[in-house]
């Protein structure tokens, strides 16, 4: 217990980094995933193929590999130093890795959301003369996004837990702090684990609470 109190500054720093990665890669993954989902439902064959291959590749690869490859890939193609808001470059690489991985899951959630919209809605939109983009933007996506909040909630929760994998590529977030403290204070492993685990449990609970709130707020009678 004392170990946790004595190292609270380091633990807090770790969780701040965890939350930062969760926020940024959550936003990036949502944007990229939605774009990919629109590829997967488009009438253009090669876009569908691109979306499908993206999903199959990134969903079936372990996150660790993606993070290690991300750290090696970006510098090779010329992105050497992209620290954002004082966070170091390798945090950014981890965030990019987390984003491309999570985007595959977001894509599938959004796609099934789009498919859950009743056919009549789109038929009505088309019959009043809306184009493909109009019917998607004004009629289908607003409904699909509501249907998509529950699966997105579990994706964001998984993302919150997945940020811990960045510890493997040396990002000093909460799981990394746990490993460091466990190595340093071997007699206190149980307290350290429970303390850090509690932090993650709180993040997960707050996240699912917020998204449930959003779900209820956005709910419309259909």
């Amino acid at each position, binding site marked *: 217990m004392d170990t946790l109190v004595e190292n609270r500054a380091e633990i807090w720093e770790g969780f701040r980094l965890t939350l930062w990665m969760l926020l940024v890669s959550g936003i990036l993954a949502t944007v990229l995933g939605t774009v990919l989902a629109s590829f997967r*439902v*488009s*009438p*253009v*064959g*090669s*876009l569908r193929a*691109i979306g499908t291959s993206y999903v*199959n*590749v990134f*969903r*079936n*690869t*372990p996150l*660790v*590999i993606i993070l*290690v*490859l991300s*750290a*090696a890939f970006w510098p*090779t*193609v010329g992105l050497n130093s992209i620290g954002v808001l004082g966070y170091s470059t390798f945090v950014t690489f981890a965030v990019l890795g987390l984003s491309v*991985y*999570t985007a595959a*899951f977001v894509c*599938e959630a959004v796609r*099934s959301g*789009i*498919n859950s919209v*009743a*056919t009549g*809605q*789109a*038929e009505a939109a*088309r019959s009043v003369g809306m184009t493909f983009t109009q019917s*998607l933007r004004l009629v*289908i996506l607003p409904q699909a996004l509501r249907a998509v909040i529950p*699966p997105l909630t579990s*994706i964001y*929760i998984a*993302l919150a*837990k*997945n940020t*811990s*994998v960045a*510890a*493997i590529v040396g990002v000093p977030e909460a*799981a990394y702090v*746990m*490993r460091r403290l466990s*190595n340093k204070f*071997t007699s206190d*492993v*149980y307290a350290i*684990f429970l303390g850090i*685990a509690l932090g*993650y*449990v709180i993040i*997960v*609970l707050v996240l699912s609470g917020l998204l449930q709130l959003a779900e209820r707020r956005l709910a419309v009678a259909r």
Partner: protein
Amino acid sequence: MSAVLFDVPGPQAQRRARIGAAVAAVLATVLVGLVLWKLAAEGEFESELWEDLRQPNIARAIGQGLTSTLSAAASAIVLSVAFGAVLAVARLSDHRVFRIPAVIVIEFFRAVPLLLLIMFVFFGFSNLFSDYWSLVLALMLYNGSVLAEVFRAGVNAVPRGQSEAAYAIGMRKSQVMGSVLLPQAVTIMLPAIISQCVVVLKDTALGVIIAYGDLVFQANLIAESVNHTIVPLALAALIFIVINYSLSRLATWLERRFAERGRGGAGGTGTADLQLDPVRGGAGD
């Protein structure tokens, strides 16, 4: 195609779609080509690298890594199913003594990152469990908890009439569960269990944190020895993709088969009531 978004396209729309497809295909090819060209220009595909990779000890290392990955995943999935079944039965129990601890265990292990569990078992019981068992037990705790919820959903998806009929002919609670509900639930849940295998297989890669010699660990070693990261790790990724993609296809196929049988069978088994997404409920772990 999804009829939600567009009608059956006419000749003009078909032509436009074909042009769009060609443009998108060209753009994508150019983009991928540029990336590959840049990687080649940076010397990621040098001929020495391929000579290094053709050495027999590299193949042996990959084989060893793959064996370690598969054996850890196999033990983990068997133990997870068993642990998940126990948790699910406890969760569905009428007695609070069983139900409440099961809920706590399930919710806790689902909320804590697997990486933390692996490190905890490894560091916390270092004199008890090897790296292999630390990984397998951590995988069991997490995936068992996930599967417990899958099992619960599966049992609840069996139509109520089934258990009512079983009670009506005088079966006991354990008989109703054992010989009526579970056999039907297992059929419904099989695709979800296979999808969970994909998750387990991917998650064995987290063993690198405790230096378990799995595929990713070996690929990292190779990457260090040949001084190139991208090709060896992409190779490891490819192996994972092939295995996991096949498993996902198997899950989808089984699900479709059960759905057809459910429709064809007398009264239906209620397969359609259960929204078990083949796209892994765990979403992203």
